[in-house]
């Protein structure tokens, strides 16, 4: 069924859905986050689940403490180098399909603390991130917005073809190597398989 026809039918209130639609509908409407907070942003994440903002409206209040039952990892806060292996390990423990929201400047890029010797400059060096929310910390509404952005992304995914979601690609890894504690820094400093910065920094 092509998009146009489906749109037409749903406009007439006829509930039609293909298997793909059902699949995406199911996973986008039941995203259970991992109960996992790192720093300041975690408080805003908690605030987003509280009465004022109520993340539960999206069916996402089931914060699971065990990664095995979680779908979404909200990296909320500064990822330090001491913590990074643990974050990767938690991500590895989550079953597919799994999503990552990098919440706040620190999680995206190290943020204000990026000059620190113990701060990882962006969690996407080790695990793939779906949605980034800037802000320090982002408002709870910004997290809700990111959540809806993630839902839209899931909804738009085709289950077949080259652009199918990562968890349906046979050869795509679902676990990523966990960095080691070196004498001066984490080794390796990034996972080159998933993270490639733009060739040149601005103005270099």
């Amino acid at each position, binding site marked *: 069924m092509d998009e146009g026809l489906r749109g037409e039918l749903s406009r007439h209130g006829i509930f039609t859905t293909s298997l793909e639609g059902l699949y995406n*509908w199911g*996973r986008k*409407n039941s995203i259970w986050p991992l109960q996992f907070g790192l720093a300041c942003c975690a408080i805003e994440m908690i605030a987003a689940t509280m*009465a004022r903002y*109520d993340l539960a409206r*999206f*069916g996402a209040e089931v914060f699971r*403490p065990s990664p*095995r039952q979680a779908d979404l990892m909200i990296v909320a806060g500064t990822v330090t180098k001491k913590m990074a292996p643990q974050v990767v390990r938690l991500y590895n423990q989550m079953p597919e399909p799994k999503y990552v929201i990098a919440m706040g400047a620190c999680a995206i890029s190290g943020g204000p603390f990026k000059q620190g010797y113990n701060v990882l400059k962006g969690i996407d060096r080790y695990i793939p991130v779906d949605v980034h929310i800037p802000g320090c910390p982002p408002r709870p509404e910004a997290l809700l917005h990111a959540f809806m952005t993630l839902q839209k992304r899931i909804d738009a995914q085709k289950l077949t073809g080259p652009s199918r979601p990562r968890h349906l690609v046979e050869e795509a890894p679902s676990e990523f190597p966990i960095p080691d504690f070196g004498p001066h820094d984490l080794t390796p400093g990034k996972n080159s398989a998933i993270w490639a910065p733009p060739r040149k920094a601005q103005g270099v």
Partner: protein
Amino acid sequence: MIEWADQIFVLLKREILLLVPVALQPLASILLSVGPIMGVFATLFAATTVLERKGLGRIQNRLGPNRVGPFGLLQPLADGIKAIIKEDVVPYRTDRVLHTLAPILIMVAALLAYSVLPLGRNMVALDLDAGVLFFFAAGATTELAIFMAGWSSRNKYALLGAMRAIAQMISYEIPLILSTVGVLMAAGTLSTTGIVEAQSGYSGLFPNWYVLTPWGFAGFFLFLIAATAEANRSPFDLPEGESELVAGYFTEYSGFKFAMFFFGEYLGLFAANALAITLFLGGWNAPLQILDWVPSYLWFFAKLLFLIGLSIWVRGTTPRLRADQLMNFAWKFMLPMSLVNILASGLWRFTGDGVLGWLVCGSLVAGSYYALGLNLAPKNAVTKRIYRFAT
């Protein structure tokens, strides 16, 4: 009473059975009982999860799930689809066979219990002579399943959670069973339908439910408390106490197996509540004679929803007990209280349900409740503390 409306399912089953060849009739009969029970309670499970989330939300000044489907009612469907498509992780080093068997066993054990529960007039899958005993026997198997889950995961939290769960379930099984003894004595049978029958009829305005006697009232609450503990519900949800043990014995479970645990747990809760209804709340009997025309199964489910609501309400209110306090409560309060309650129900038989009976049994139950409550308070606890202020 409108007979056909009350018996519609019974008649329907009979009609369908007539269409089936005789050789297959026993099998068909089983299927016709099991199928609807599973369907109805699976739906109830789905409804309960969303009701619980919305109810808790209302208690907490928020809306709860309301965006998936109309009023968020399709939320459990989405959760179900998600659970099915979720990758099933079996961690390395687990005991694979036990790991897989545990959620199945927990569901089977919970479902087995439903075969003796009368859901309405003439609506019981298996009318056993020792129905109540069967119920408890089936319930006892869940402990094994929980142990298997905890042990096979090879995870400290899971193992600790399982040990807690089993210790708790064994401890509360005793008051659970003892609190029913009064009813069994009064009804003179172990058959669930027999017990419901014994509670039919009305004396004056009030129905002949056991909950409306002093020992029955106490027994009902003892049973509810013990059943809450058996079902690992708040405030007895220590085995999966998030704040201590991550997710308890199902820490390592994901995807559909986890959903099965969830399902099994809720099925256990429904079953325990259904038994409480059967034993104390007159089963499918109407509370007032003039409401007798309402089909019996509706009464049953109305009562069940009421009890589920009660458990959600309690969950929204209380913090969790500590493991040793939980045990203390079981052994120092629940056990003696249920023993006293048996005595009270014995006395009731001799004093009759007149004023004397109320006086004797009531004072016995209330007095022992008060005394045991005092005894339960921690030794060093001061109920009223006074704080100094420096200026």
